[in-house]
């Protein structure tokens, strides 16, 4: 059954290691700039990994104004600042927010785990009376969403979605359903995670970071290059990115600028959590297939894919196999992996991919996969085309684009983006199956 309520994107706000506007991010990604550099937020003494994608020091006062932002921890400040940018970009002024309930859906893997750990350590070392109630308020995993709602007076549905690196796409999907079901007409959605010692060290010890494997065959080498045969893990990053999603007719009524439309979404879970390659690939394919079915388009109507691949040894392979099965009827479909430049910003990754794909759909320029020299032999090169450099993409016969997300624990999610307007029924194969179009 066709859903008469369509979901359009009317603005974006972001803070990322590669810029704090969609234009700046896109320019950096097209230029092949890397966000990775020595970590300044915490010492990495004694660790084999020393690089990450940090947001350059940001001036909270310049971004948040003269109000008292002391109750907001760093992740909350990042999210509140990104939300402010997204509200401004989409033309939502404070007086409009007083009249209309706007929602907020934030995807995050960790929210304020650094705040949580510090709170606990202060309690342990100095006693409960030194553990601040102000900090305690920020130990709930929905703290950044709550603080941001207070900051911007967002009184609609306020939800936080956690799904590892798939959090951001899951949050956008959740927001799309809120809009389609008529619960809201406007919702800010996206994701965020901050770089901190606790997560960096955790991923490091788990051998997930590039160059962190204990037996480090090429000691010191950090090769976070998605789909490259030499890849040895991802580089951790941070970011905050929110999109203003609105029901199409109400956006039109207020004369909003429409950047694009989310035509469909899909999700799936791999119970083997990457242990069984076949099952993992099928979960990737089921999520994308469900998103295409939800959008009502065939796989051959997709003009570009923004992959989740981040240099992870197993997950990149599973994603490639999943993409291959969905797009097997396609030839040389352009695929990019912006985490080759951004690093892995966890909850922010999906929304940052969306923001950049919207730019690509506007100017036809798709970022490359930085550093890609030896494409993994398992990569389906006949079906999917990669390039180390940016190149142009022709959306004229295939106007849609897919944003893919793969979490670390089996979560798969995908979005179909396209120009605003009802999706025309495509031809060819339905693309992967998975259901969800009802």
């Amino acid at each position, binding site marked *: 059954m066709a859903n008469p309520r369509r979901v359009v994107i009317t603005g974006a706000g972001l803070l990322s290691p590669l810029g704090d506007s969609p234009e700046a991010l896109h320019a950096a990604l097209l230029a092949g700039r890397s966000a990775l550099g020595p970590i300044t937020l915490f010492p990495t003494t004694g660790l084999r990994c020393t690089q990450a994608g940090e947001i350059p020091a940001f001036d909270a006062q310049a971004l948040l104004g003269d109000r008292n932002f002391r109750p907001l921890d760093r992740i909350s400040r990042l999210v509140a600042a990104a939300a402010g940018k997204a509200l401004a970009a989409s033309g939502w002024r404070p007086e409009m927010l007083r009249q209309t309930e706007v929602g907020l859906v934030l995807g995050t893997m960790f929210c304020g785990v650094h705040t*949580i750990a510090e709170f606990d350590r202060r309690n342990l070392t100095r006693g409960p009376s030194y553990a601040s109630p102000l900090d305690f308020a920020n*130990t709930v995993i929905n703290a950044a969403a709550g603080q941001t709602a207070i900051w911007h007076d967002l009184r609609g549905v306020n939800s936080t979605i956690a799904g590892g690196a798939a959090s951001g796409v899951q949050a956008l999907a959740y927001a799309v359903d809120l809009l389609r079901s008529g619960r809201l007409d406007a919702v800010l959605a996206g994701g965020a995670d901050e770089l901190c010692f606790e997560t960096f060290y955790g991923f490091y010890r788990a051998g997930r970071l590039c160059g962190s494997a204990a037996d480090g065959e090429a000691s010191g080498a950090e090769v976070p290059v998605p789909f490259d045969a030499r890849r040895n893990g991802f580089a951790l990053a941070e970011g905050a990115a929110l999109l203003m999603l609105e029901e199409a007719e109400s956006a039109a009524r207020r004369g909003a600028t429409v950047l694009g439309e989310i035509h469909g979404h899909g999700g799936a879970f791999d119970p083997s959590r990457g242990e069984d390659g076949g099952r993992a690939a099928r979960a990737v394919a089921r999520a994308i297939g469900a998103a295409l079915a939800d959008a009502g388009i065939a796989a051959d109507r997709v003009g570009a894919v923004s992959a989740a691949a981040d240099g992870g040894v197993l997950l990149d392979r599973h994603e490639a196999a999943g993409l291959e099965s969905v797009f097997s009827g396609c030839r040389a479909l352009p695929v990019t992996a912006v985490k080759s430049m951004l690093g892995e910003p966890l909850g922010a990754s999906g929304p940052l991919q969306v923001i950049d794909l919207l730019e690509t759909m506007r100017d036809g320029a798709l970022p490359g996969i930085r550093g890609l020299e030896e494409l993994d032999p398992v990569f389906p090169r006949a079906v999917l085309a990669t390039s180390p450099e940016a190149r142009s993409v022709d959306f004229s016969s295939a106007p849609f684009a897919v944003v893919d997300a793969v*979490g*670390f624990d089996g979560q798969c999610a995908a979005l179909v983006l396209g120009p605003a307007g009802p999706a025309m029924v495509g031809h060819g194969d339905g693309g992967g199956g998975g259901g969800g179009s009802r």
Partner: protein
Amino acid sequence: MSRNPVVVTGIGVVTPVGTGRDEFWDNLLAGRSGFAPVSSFDTSAHTVHLGAEVRGFQGADQVRNLDASRLGRASQLAIAAAHQALADAGLDSSAGLADPGRAGVSMGTTSGEPLEVERFDDFFLASDLAGMGTEFIVRYPCHVIAANVAAELGFEGSATMIPAACAAGNYAIAHAVDLLSAGRADLMLAGGADAFSRITYTGFARLGAIAPVTCQPFDRNRKGMIPGEGAGMVVLEPLARALARGARIYAEVAGYGLSCDAHHMTAAHPEGAGAARAMERALEVSGLNADEVSYISAHGTGTPTNDRLETIAVKRVFGDAARRVPISSVKSMLGHTMGAASAIEAAVCALAVHCDRIPGTMNLEEPDPECDLDYVPNAARELPVRVAMNNAYAFGGNNASLILRKCEM
């Protein structure tokens, strides 16, 4: 919404007052409390010492397919409740499913697996991070609770984690209902879980929100809540499928309402505005008038402000009917099980609708002039329960009201 009704067909609970539907329900109706001095960590630095822990829980006995030793406590609690709920629904893990890709999990939590971050901190402070092992990132992130449940059961539909603090269970159930209504899944396990934690305990102690002696919601002398832990899960499926397989139906999910105060991180709006909007929205979506509600399961933490403001919000929404509708807080027995609370309370509402009985608010000795409604003091009550409303409020100003009603065909 009503064109594709979603019904509750299974209940699983692991709580401070009992594990499993029958033990839990019997104890709630009998007014038994689960409070005891905290055993899982030292509270001597605090001025309060009571907690509502799940005693004697052995995860290894509950987890059948995964390696329990690699799972955090909240995941173990959730898996135990999930198995119960599926069995209660007459389903036996993925074996009973035609298509595991159409079965999903939606879970809520406040703190996820906080014991894992505490463990990190213990090694950190001992300057022995090397000794911590490699599993922090495998065990800690809160999404692993949903993932662990889905992996244990072999479910291949989406596994979603909604850490909406103390309203998370309602948020998770609401999300599951939406997926089922939209035809994105045929079966959902939805609920919440949280593990007892020194971080949570310390925080609430610092807020002055923990009661020293007992939890007395709506009592004039109430001093706060008792932090707790647990898990609550419900099996949700479309009515048509439940009927086709001859399932026992506890209740239909009539609708829900969510809102955000956007006022304060830890204090509710002074006029209960957000809470009222969530209740109003839930009634509206359900197509119900306030005077059709037979029972309200209150958030009812027992803190001075929550109970006063919740009473104000109920009066705003219910008007004259506020004096007629019975309202009770099972937190007077369970304590506050955080992210599990509203899921467990949703199970209470489903049982109330199914059994036409409601648990009382225990320890209500002296009425508070500011809390002057019918809080079902100190004893369970038998009455026809056609419609039950489950209220939950959370840090971040999150409000969620869920409405269950008798499935009348």
